[in-house]
């Protein structure tokens, strides 16, 4: 045993992904890096562990692709990731193509009926219901253990878009409760909270509670939102914007060789060009910006023509295949 110890030197220990020195546990700038160089440069190494980070942007701005990049790099390091998917938008096929090890991703879709909340509607078309006719809310068989839960979640106001639902909808409640459960369990490297396009407000107390739990569990929390929701409790906030959608137009030839003649042009969707601005950074400088491309197939990408063809050319493409 004594002979084996010198072989594991400081350099080799540093190379191990899960090994770090004791004092690093108390450092607040431990980062979870992405595998994309421009993001790491923009975020000064990645998103901070034990903190809440926000990626703010509209649809097709590339925020899900960045999240996939973080998930991919985290799972490749052997860590476990939880994705709370409010919009039911997680697409495993493209995530796997983006390098995500799906076996290390816990997918949670909140919003189904749950018994954590004390109020329930009468079950229709059945003699069995949760409350008798007088509707007196007697103590539930499930109540009495998590009293703090309903307190915290009642502070969430709910405004959903595009699916505008009534206030009885428990999606936001179970969304936040699911995040709390994941953070309570501990051991997750990254927690993605995908708000989709819903715009519900997290109260200050709920955001503070999430931030405290993230700090205790040392889990990096990444929120994908269309507008900032965490306010001062977000350590990092990045604004994303779509610069342009990249379509390429290639000349399609029926014959190969020197006598090949172009028959018609073929449109291909190549990807998106995204610009990002670091709007808020509590542990570093802010205001920096970066730009990168998010592509359908990065290895085969050869941009031939950025210009949009004339209308009559585009008209021919529609029936080209």
């Amino acid at each position: 045993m004594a002979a084996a110890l010198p072989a594991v030197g400081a350099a080799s220990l540093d190379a191990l992904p899960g090994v770090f020195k004791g004092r690093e546990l108390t450092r607040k700038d431990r980062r979870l890096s992405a595998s994309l160089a421009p993001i790491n440069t923009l975020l000064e190494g990645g998103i901070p562990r034990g903190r809440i980070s926000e990626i703010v942007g509209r649809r097709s701005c590339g925020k899900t692709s960045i999240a996939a990049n973080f998930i991919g790099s985290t799972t490749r390091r052997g860590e476990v990731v939880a994705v709370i998917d409010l919009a039911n938008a997680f697409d495993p096929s493209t995530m796997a193509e983006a390098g995500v090890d799906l076996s290390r991703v816990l997918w949670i879709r909140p919003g189904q009926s749950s018994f954590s909340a004390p109020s329930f509607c009468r079950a229709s078309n059945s003699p069995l219901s949760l409350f008798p006719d007088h509707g007196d809310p007697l103590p539930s068989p499930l109540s009495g253990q998590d009293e703090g839960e309903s307190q915290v979640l009642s502070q969430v106001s709910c405004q959903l878009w595009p699916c505008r639902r009534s206030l009885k909808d428990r999606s936001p409640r179970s969304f936040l409760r699911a995040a709390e459960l994941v953070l309570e369990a501990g051991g997750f490297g990254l927690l993605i909270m995908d708000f989709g396009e819903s715009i519900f407000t997290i109260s200050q107390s709920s955001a503070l509670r999430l931030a405290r739990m993230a700090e205790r569990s040392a889990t990096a929390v990444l929120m994908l939102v269309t507008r900032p929701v965490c306010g001062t409790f977000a350590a990092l906030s990045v604004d994303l914007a779509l610069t342009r959608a990249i379509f390429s137009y290639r000349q399609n030839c029926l014959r190969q060789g020197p006598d090949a003649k172009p028959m018609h042009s073929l449109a291909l969707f190549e990807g998106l060009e995204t610009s990002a601005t670091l709007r808020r950074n509590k542990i570093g400088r802010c205001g920096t910006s970066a730009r990168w491309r998010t592509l359908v197939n990065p290895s085969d990408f050869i941009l031939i023509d950025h210009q949009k063809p004339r209308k009559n050319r585009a008209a021919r493409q529609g029936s080209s295949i």
Partner: protein
Amino acid sequence: MNRAPTSDSPRRIACLLVRELPLAAMVRANPELRDAAFALSIGTGPRAALGFVSAPARRAGVVPAMTVAQASAVVPDLTILACNPALEQAAADALIDVAESFSPIVEDGGPGRVYLDLAGLNGLYGGEDEMSAELARRVRQVGMEADIGIAASKDIAWIAARCGGVRIIDAGRETEFLQWVPLELLGLEVDVELQLERLGIRRLGDLARLDVRELGSRMGAGAVELMRLVRGQTGGPLNCRRPGEIFTEKIELDYAIELLEPLGFILRGMLDRLTARLKLRGLVAGDLTLSLEMAGRRRDERRVTIGAATNEVRSLLALILLDLEKSPPSEGVEAVQLSVQARVSRPAQSDMFLPPAPAPERLQTTLARLSALCGPDNVGTLLPANSHRPDAIKRVDFAPPCGPSQAQDHAQTVNRIVLRAIRPPQEVEVMSSRGVPQFVRGQHICARVVSIAGPWRRQGEWWKTALESGNRTANGTAKVPQNGLAGGFAHDYYEMALDDGGVYRVYRDLRSDRWFVDGIYD
């Protein structure tokens, strides 16, 4: 006094005895009856006889064999309940679970009586005093009180337990113990006991002094067996039973329950008792089978799948209630039976040289809580399904691999795009000019097409019939489109950049000639 193990008495048998099991089972299911005056009747109505009477009721003057009317006259506020065989069976099973949590060699000696072999357990518990104390504690853990006897054979252990409390008979002193034991402790038939009493025999020691042949010729073979017992000559081995993997609790209700909430309270009590039994054995609850008996002998049996095995009652109850709310029973429930498939808890341990991961037990509990919160179908790992449909997915239980990931992490300068799925695909109206889409209008999209790529045709599952593919007419019959694509799917996919800033994946269903948006590139 701590009794040290002796090398010349390797065989030590303990007997767990629960007196008046029907009363103990009722108290186990209704802990508020523990110090109450109550009685169990055999049958219903004022003329039904009382079978069992609790100690406070007995002190108040109620005795077994009284009718319900008589007992009510003696103690007006006496609680009278009907005997519940299902509860008795569950209590007997719980007692066996206690024994199996203690020793691998266990014999079921009948309702309320269990024998277990203590050989070799001294190293674990220290001595027979500690063992008896631990056994008593575990019996209390499942909601009952038991008398315990420890001796060299199971019959003497049973007699020792009948003496009450905890009684340990040292090896070699069995005859000395049996000398003073009164005859009524054996629970003999009344006529045999009377016959012996006429002979002046009141203790087992008196019986042991008689001649076996003479007693046998006068009273038959039963008396010979009794003599062998009294002289400590019995010593049969224990008939071991295989430890059960399914744990069951059943309760028969006095009246039908028609609301989910009271049913939830009953289920919670049953789950409390089941998980206590599972914890004793170091097991966790897996899939549940709930059987509801309704009026008219109708039975509603359902299986509740537990994604992550756990002993957390709150999560298990939430999953059962979710299932009940989804498809409630059609009538009032008169009896409930709950069976649990026991699972061994995951014995994994995190590696010191790997990144931190959730502790296995906490992860299981968290998964169970999440399943209860969001529904079992909404928690797990999403994987692409083995299908040609681009939107086909499947959910599997979350079980992250223990070892490090084999993939290498490289820094890149370009990112790979992913799709945000829209489930189910949203139908849109597409306006085209010369066959090229120009404008898209739907419930949440209304924008001009800026750029477009496609179409890319995907078709498959042609072997399916039109009905399997969901292509049916209003009256439910299979609808075969004019283009001859009877089953499966045939879609033309487009990537469309609209002037609302989004890039969408849109497809045209060739069977129905309708357009759908099924994803947003983001």
